[in-house]
């Protein structure tokens, strides 16, 4: 047994997130329960109760107040954290825009969950897709280890003086949030080496008073918003550097997208989050059945890693995009498929197939993904395949 392996724990993604919060020495945590996020803040409360983390816990009365309180705390220079899911994320939607507009380096974990109505406590990506334009950097992690590493990395990216944007670390509710798997925390020393505490942003300080959150006229508003555009571009560049820094300090990195057997692939499936493991198994199975399949995973969703994606897709003739949310009335109806159709659909010689699957955690097995991968062959050469979304697995079709 090596020395490193003695640090390996068994934890859910929620516990891994809490562990990262402890290791980067977060100062203020807003706590509000919502399934399947709750165990993140429970674990943090436990760390504080045991003296493992010195932080102020604010037992807010809603997610809206959670984000509001964090904005106040961050505006004072504190490292702040919260986590949420589903309706909670939507309830704080208003304030998400304000956090990014005020350029506060908050970090939040999102255990992704379906949206009401009807109520579903189970997993899909509808909540995340509804806030994708709120000006936050968005990572979607696929394992407990990645959730830990990304949460640590998130503070470095958010607090980079050339970025100063809030960061979401999203992962699948239940599938990741409640599945225990091995993971290795870096420990406080290495976490703080990667994300040292530097107060790089403008703060409320009686010694040099500033006014934050002003009203602006048409004369200025647009420039503020444009600066957020520039910050996102910078964040993309910094996110690439961050992968190298993580490799150096943590001994692990992921890239902005991950690929599997894509080099010689003819057809490929694109997924996010915890479908990644099954997608890779499906690729192997599809290849056994004679389809030269590959798979990709978007790890960074905002800013969108277009160059990485384009590079990976060269040579692929059919791309199936598995969306776990619906953009109602849009063609295609999968939000990521829509985005890829708009950004690279015409630049690459590629047929794009929009697939919606797994809503409200409807089971999608390796077999299902294999079937989807094999079926992509049928769309070869079809230029308008993406205009029709395949609602895979829905009954009554």
């Amino acid at each position, binding site marked *: 047994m090596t020395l490193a392996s003695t640090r390996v724990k068994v934890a859910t993604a929620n516990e891994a997130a809490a562990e990262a919060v402890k290791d980067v020495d977060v100062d203020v945590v807003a706590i509000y329960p919502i399934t399947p996020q709750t165990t993140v803040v429970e674990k943090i409360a436990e760390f504080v109760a045991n003296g493992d983390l010195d932080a*102020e816990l*604010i037992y807010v*009365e809603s997610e809206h107040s959670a984000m*509001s309180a964090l*904005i106040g705390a961050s505006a004072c220079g504190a490292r702040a954290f919260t986590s949420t899911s589903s309706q909670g994320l939507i309830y704080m939607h208003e304030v998400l825009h304000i956090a990014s507009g005020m350029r506060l380096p908050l970090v939040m974990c999102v255990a992704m969950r379906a949206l009401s109505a009807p109520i579903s406590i189970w997993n899909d990506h509808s909540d995340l897709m509804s806030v994708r334009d709120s000006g936050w950097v968005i990572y979607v992690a696929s394992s407990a280890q990645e959730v830990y590493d990304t949460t640590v990395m998130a503070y470095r990216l958010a607090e980079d003086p050339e970025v100063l944007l809030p960061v979401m670390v999203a992962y699948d509710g239940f599938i990741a949030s409640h599945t225990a798997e091995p993971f290795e925390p870096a420990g406080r020393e290495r976490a703080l080496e990667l994300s040292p505490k530097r107060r790089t942003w403008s703060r409320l300080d009686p010694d040099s*008073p500033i006014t934050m959150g002003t*009203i602006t006229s048409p004369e200025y508003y647009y420039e503020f918003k444009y600066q957020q555009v520039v910050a996102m571009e910078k964040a993309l560049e910094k996110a690439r550097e961050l992968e190298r820094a993580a490799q150096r300090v943590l001994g692990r990195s992921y890239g902005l997208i991950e690929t599997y057997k894509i080099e010689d692939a003819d057809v490929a499936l694109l997924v996010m989050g915890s479908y990644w493991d099954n997608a890779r198994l499906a690729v192997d199975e599809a290849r056994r059945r004679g389809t030269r399949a590959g798979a990709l995973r978007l790890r960074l969703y905002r800013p969108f890693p277009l160059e990485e994606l384009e590079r990976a897709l060269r040579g692929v003739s059919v791309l199936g995009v598995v969306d776990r949310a619906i953009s109602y009335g849009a063609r295609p109806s999968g939000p990521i498929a829509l985005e890829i159709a708009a950004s690279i659909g015409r630049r690459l010689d590629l047929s794009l197939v929009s697939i919606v699957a797994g809503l409200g955690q409807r089971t999608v097995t390796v077999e299902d993904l294999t079937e989807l991968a094999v079926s992509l062959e049928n769309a070869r050469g079809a230029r308008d395949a993406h205009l029709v979304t395949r609602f895979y697995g829905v009954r009554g079709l």
Partner: protein
Amino acid sequence: MKVPESVRDIPREELFVGGHGLCAGCVAGTIARHLVKMAGPNTIVVSSTSCVEVSTAFYPYTSWRVPWIHVAFENAAAVASGIESALKVLARKGAIDPSRRINVVVYAGDGGTFDIGLQALSGMLERGHKVTYVVYDNEAYMNTGIQRSGATPPMAWTSTTPVGSKVRGKEGRKKDIVAIALAHGIPYAATANPAYPLDMDAKFVRGLSAPGPSLVHVLMPCTTGWRFEPRIGIKLARLAVETGMWINYEVVEGRLRVTTKVPKRKPVEEYLRLQGRFSHLTPEEIREIQNTVDREVDRINALAGEIAIGPVAR
């Protein structure tokens, strides 16, 4: 922080300065100016979206010489909770001077407090954050142009409670925000009125010195929304007290004390007749308001354990 005994005790230093866009004769600026004078430079002010927010922090200008933040309409108390928590932990960790006491003050309107901001306020009070919450009450949503709020008094005209053949202005009563705040068991709550600046300033100081959350509810005559001549704002504020339409009191650790005693009250009509928002009232309707005020005076006297507000002298 010292409770001022005369106007000479009020600091000369101006931390809320002119050049803002408040209406001529607006009393909200007067209250803000006094509030930050009493709190001093070691203060962080949080505002909700309101007249004061849009007119005193108009980029690239500001009227605030203390750190000031606005986030949204309904969340000033939550933002203040975060600030107060951050100051505590940052002092504990040595990131800011632990010996330094920094006041956290909210300055919010009645809409942002009585209505949309009530949940955040309740959360802040319940959790016990050491924040002084000052609500300036102009009795409607004045920032958006005189729509009724939970603080609008009965029968007042507003743009959403217009006076017509079927409706006679705002229906129902004015929410008792001090009672709501006190229901959280907070150590200090008070009502105040800018026509009595020393009393108001003393309440700001007591609120700031309280060992937990405090709330000061301040009447703010609004020239635009109430429809009166800009020069009579303070006169109207005084008439509110003299008629018993407004009672200055404070509650310290659950004990109520009337701070501006009125041995002989003026009839409410003197207050109502100076304002366009009440110009439609019939003598019967004025009598109805008088009766409501009489009952409220009785209630406060009973709580104070004395006849602090006397009968109407005609």
